[in-house]
């Protein structure tokens, strides 16, 4: 994908399986939104296409697509219900069905009393809820959400994630761009991490965690921790240490090794490197000032 002479996405290919939730991760400017826009035909890609079920995707062929763009916007001078019904009809619903679904959604997100209120009279968060309602009004088969929880308080974020989960349960395939790693860990089956328009990592969350750090062993102990060929000590504090198992080492072997070395082990847990740590590891470097 080129903008003028600048290539912003480099030879990017990925699969999204039917019914899964796919996380699209990356720092600001890494090309996530541009990729989505190119996939949806909003930008004309220099090359490449999106196929759904083996068929080239045409965004406006009546397919049940739901897209929540990063740039939020609705017809602000119209009433909430009018806007929702308008988009519902454009997405192939009858006027009655669009109105019925709109009212049901507004009820669910506690905006039923705002149905006849102009969109610009709503708060930012309320407008975002309406926009999500417009996005899922036609029960989309493919739901593409660009920063869906941006601007929501924790309560509404939880509500939003519940709604996304409901869509997934109903059979929707979800592609989600987000910076919220907890959302990714809760909702996503697989992820892709973009950096400067290149796929830095791609696979299940476990695959990515294995690639960037894998398993961490947390040990609460008494006495000194010996060096070993089975692990590297990454963090050590008084009576606490984090060990990174070396390739091919099983966590049980480490425990046996510690006990054999006479270490009093009071606690032994294994954990994967969090996505947040991996994110910081990948993108933190590019944000550090030069010379640091």
């Amino acid at each position, binding site marked *: 994908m080129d903008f003028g002479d600048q290539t912003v996405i480099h030879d*990017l290919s990925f699969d999204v399986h039917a019914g899964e939730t796919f996380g699209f991760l990356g720092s600001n400017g890494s090309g996530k939104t541009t990729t989505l826009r190119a996939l949806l035909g909003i930008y004309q890609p220099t090359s490449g296409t999106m196929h759904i079920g083996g068929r080239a995707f045409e*965004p406006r*062929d009546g397919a049940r697509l739901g897209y929540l763009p990063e740039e939020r*916007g609705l017809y602000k001078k119209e009433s909430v219900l009018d806007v929702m019904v308008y988009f519902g009809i454009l997405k192939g619903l009858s006027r009655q069905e669009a109105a019925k679904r709109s009212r049901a959604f507004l009820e669910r997100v506690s905006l039923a009393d705002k149905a006849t209120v102009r969109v610009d009279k709503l708060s930012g968060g309320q407008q975002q809820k309406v926009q999500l309602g417009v996005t899922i009004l036609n029960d989309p088969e493919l739901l593409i959400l660009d920063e869906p929880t941006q601007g929501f308080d924790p309560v509404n974020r939880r509500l939003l994630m519940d709604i996304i989960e409901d869509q997934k349960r109903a059979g929707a395939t979800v592609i989600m761009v987000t910076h919220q790693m907890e959302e990714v860990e809760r909702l996503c089956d697989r992820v892709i991490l973009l950096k400067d328009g290149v796929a830095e990592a791609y696979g299940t969350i476990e695959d990515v965690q294995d690639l960037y750090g894998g398993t961490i062993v947390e040990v609460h102990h008494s006495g000194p921790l010996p060096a070993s060929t089975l692990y590297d000590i990454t963090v050590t504090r008084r009576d606490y240490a984090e060990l990174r198992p070396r390739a091919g080492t099983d966590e049980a072997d480490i425990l046996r090794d510690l006990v054999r070395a006479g270490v009093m082990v009071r606690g032994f847990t294994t954990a994967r490197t969090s996505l947040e740590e991996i994110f910081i590891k990948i993108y933190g470097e590019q944000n550090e000032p030069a010379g640091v």
Partner: protein
Amino acid sequence: MAAHNLNTVIGFEFIRTVKKKRFWITTLAIPVVFAVVLGLSFISGQSSRATADTQKYAQVTFQYTDASGLVTDAGASAFGGTRTNDGAVAIAAVRAGTLAAYFAFPANVATQPVRVYGTDKGIFANGTYEAVARAILVSAARQKVSSPQLMAVTQGNVTITSQTFKGGQISGGIGEVIPPLLFLAIFYLSILMLGNQMLSSTLEEKENRVTEMILTTLNPTTLIIGKIIALFMVGLVQMVTFALPVIIGYLFFRANLNLPSVDLSHLSLVPGPMIIGALLLMGGFILFTGTLVAIGAVVPTVKEAGTAFAPLVIMLFLPVYAVSLIVSDPNALIVQVFTYFPFTAPVTAMLRNGFGSLNDLQSAIVITELFIFGLIALRLAVHLFRYGSLEYSKKLSITNTFRRRKRAEPAAVSDRAS
């Protein structure tokens, strides 16, 4: 699906425009002002007629001298006048307030003024003196001519019907010119009334950040065509609203408002010029609409759109400045340029079509040209909306939109990106 979406867009755009208070305030402002002016005109018309009648038949005690020999003593006395031989004494009496008025009729009333002297009765009542003096002369002239027909002729109250021939057939004359020129009036009205709305029609999607939602739901061509049709319907509503008071005023209050009678039987609807006029109107409308929508897609704000509108308005009115040349010498170079330059072509060609100086070949060329350029402008408008409205707050570089559009080997990764 496309037809369904087109109808949905038309309905949405039309209804949300006509249900706005601001639309009706703006739309009704013109007929309300018009009605107020008509009302004032009606009231003042009645008042003026009553005043004129009162003045004409007013009785004034006056003296007069008559060098023309037209005024008879009997005629003058009917208005309250008596002859005197000494004008200076009469003027002195008027000045002293002992005589209401003195009229001095000259030897030749056609070349010399009638002098009227009167005591001041206020700026409006003073008109009585002139009215009486005039009425005395008219009455005297009637008696001299003693023929109502001759009197009508001298006053220009005659009806003339004319018939002209073209190619051995009766030609319609001015009655044949007017109907095709109605298309020109409709063209001007539609562009001037809807121009700003056309400019700002796609700005709303841009300013409200709705573009991405729209582009993934709807073909931009459907959106823009739908908006244009809805705008046209809005324009019709406005035109009907404007025309209603005029029609009502004409039908029911024509006599009171001193409106001239319009005899539509003289109008001749010749199929050829009417069809050409309609096609020129359609082509011109498409061209200007497409261009205005394209401008709206490029600029980020209504203000900047207005600046870009100005050159189009100039081109819209440019042929009007050359109208006498267009009518009298259609082969003049400037007329030829105006006829074929796309943005001056609609007005020039419609004028020439009305006055019968646009032959079939020229008509065909101009109509084809307008439709081709109009469709190109519409395509450009769709393209610029598609890429320009995502620029949101920035002015669009048209070159960049085309550079971005270039594709290289679309199949290269198509089977991988699934």
